[in-house]
């Protein structure tokens, strides 16, 4: 029983971290209808910048502020030079553009800051905590706490403020939003900036777990099945499924043989796509033909 609980708790914590990665996708997909392939590169870019700054002796808080500023600037630049010229193009065109962007960001980041593995020290002790005979990773606990706080803040921002209502308006019907005087470019900049900042937090937490280097951008690939199963438009879906997937990976995986873990989530995602293309909690799109 304690093994199960331990896995369950560990799974929920790790799932929250997957969800953190997924949120970046969900935000951008909702606002601009594009699957942002560059999310992983932006995550790596943020983490790399932070690590390079701290290695150069910049205090943690200052490094965080500078990195955050740089990501906001990048978001504005992406909107201005990529999204705006391509407005009204097909989603596939936009997707291809983010694919190109991904290589650009990765290349620039590694060109400037190198590709060796760096450690991130966030000052969180990675000592196990014991709850009776259940062992919990202290780092995962703190990381999950940060993720939850971030989700709550984002939820408040997007549900309680006028910016949030406008964002939902843009997501729902772009031409109507424009006709009402919503500055769609501004909304895109805000959303990309927020996605970048969420990516930075995710990048730092994942980076602290596995080191900051190229493969960090692949974390997002693991978040992909989480997104598909949860539904592309649902942040809650991303969290629930993130937890579930992590649980399945650690618990069902070994039951079916060790090698299964890496593709298990993708298999599940495929199954969900066949049965319910909108995902478990996503909005079903109804299109008049």
């Amino acid at each position, binding site marked *: 029983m304690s093994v199960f609980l331990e896995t369950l708790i560990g799974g929920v914590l790790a799932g929250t971290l997957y969800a953190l990665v997924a949120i970046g996708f969900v935000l951008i997909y909702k606002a601009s209808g594009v699957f942002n392939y560059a999310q992983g590169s932006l995550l790596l870019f943020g983490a790399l910048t932070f690590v390079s700054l701290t290695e150069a002796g910049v205090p943690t808080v200052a490094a965080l502020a500078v990195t955050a500023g740089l990501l906001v600037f990048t978001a504005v630049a992406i909107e201005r030079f990529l999204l705006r010229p391509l407005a009204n193009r097909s989603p596939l065109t936009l997707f291809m553009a983010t694919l190109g962007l991904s290589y650009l960001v990765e290349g620039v980041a590694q060109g400037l800051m190198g590709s060796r593995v760096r450690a991130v020290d966030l000052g969180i002790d990675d000592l196990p905590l014991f709850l009776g005979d259940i062992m919990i990773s202290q780092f995962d606990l703190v990381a999950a706490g940060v993720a939850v706080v971030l989700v709550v803040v984002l939820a408040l921002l997007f549900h309680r*403020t*006028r*910016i949030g*209502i*406008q964002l939902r308006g843009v997501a729902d019907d772009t031409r109507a939003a424009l006709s009402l*005087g919503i500055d769609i470019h501004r909304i895109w900049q*805000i959303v990309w900036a927020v996605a970048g900042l969420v990516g930075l937090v995710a990048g730092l937490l994942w980076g602290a777990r596995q080191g900051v280097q190229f493969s960090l951008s692949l974390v997002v690939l693991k978040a992909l099945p989480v997104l598909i199963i949860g539904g592309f438009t649902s942040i809650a879906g991303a969290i629930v499924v993130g937890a579930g997937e992590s649980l399945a990976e650690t618990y069902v995986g070994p039951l079916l043989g060790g090698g299964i873990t890496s593709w298990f989530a993708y298999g599940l995602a495929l199954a969900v796509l066949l049965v319910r293309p909108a995902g478990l909690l996503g909005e079903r799109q109804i299109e008049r033909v």
Partner: protein
Amino acid sequence: MSDTILELTDVSLAFKGLTAINGLSFAVRRGEICALIGPNGAGKSSLLNILNGVYRPQSGTIVFEGERFHRMEPLKAARRGIGRSFQNNALFSGMSVLDNVIVGLSRRARTTLVEEALRLPRARAQEAAFRERARAVLRLLELESQAGTAVGTLPYGVQKKVELARAIVAEPALLLLDEPLAGMNAREKDEIAAIVERLNRELALTIVLIEHDLGIVLRLAHHVVVLDYGRKLADGPPETIRNDPDVIAAYIGTSPAALAA
């Protein structure tokens, strides 16, 4: 203020060689209801989309409120006070009626993102004012009782009214309505027509509308512009239009008697 709020001169629009609007000129007087009529494909919706900046005309000029434009942009049009509704409802279906109308006030917003995010006093005051203004418009259109309902769950006719509420809440100088009566039964049509007339009379709102129901158009409009294949066929008060032989010919099968009905 000039008597003419909007003037188009020699405006043409083509999509890859297919001409949608061909050298069109007409003017809209301040405070009137101007109806655009014509068969399907005559270029009515294209024209509305030019006025609101969705389409870019290849040639011609548009003068709105004394300012000359070669082309409008949707954001610019909205901020200069051109409001509109769409042919098929373009409401934010997941949101409540009230939220939909509040979004309609976007161009009136004066707060910054930081004020909004931190909910500083100015942002709160603006939010309260927006809410009050939106409720007032809902009262005007008798939609108060549905304020909290998700728009997607409402009947089509009610949704049309919500879209109207959203379009007028920011007090546009010019309101463009793309088939506000389409898909409605006779009773709903009369209700919306009465609302449009009231908005025009009580708020002195200038309205340009597209409508197929000729009976209602000829009763409601002060000024009718008839389009056919992107050209202007006739332009004048409804009494003149009703008896224009070119107009009657364009509506093949429609006798003058039916037009007058």
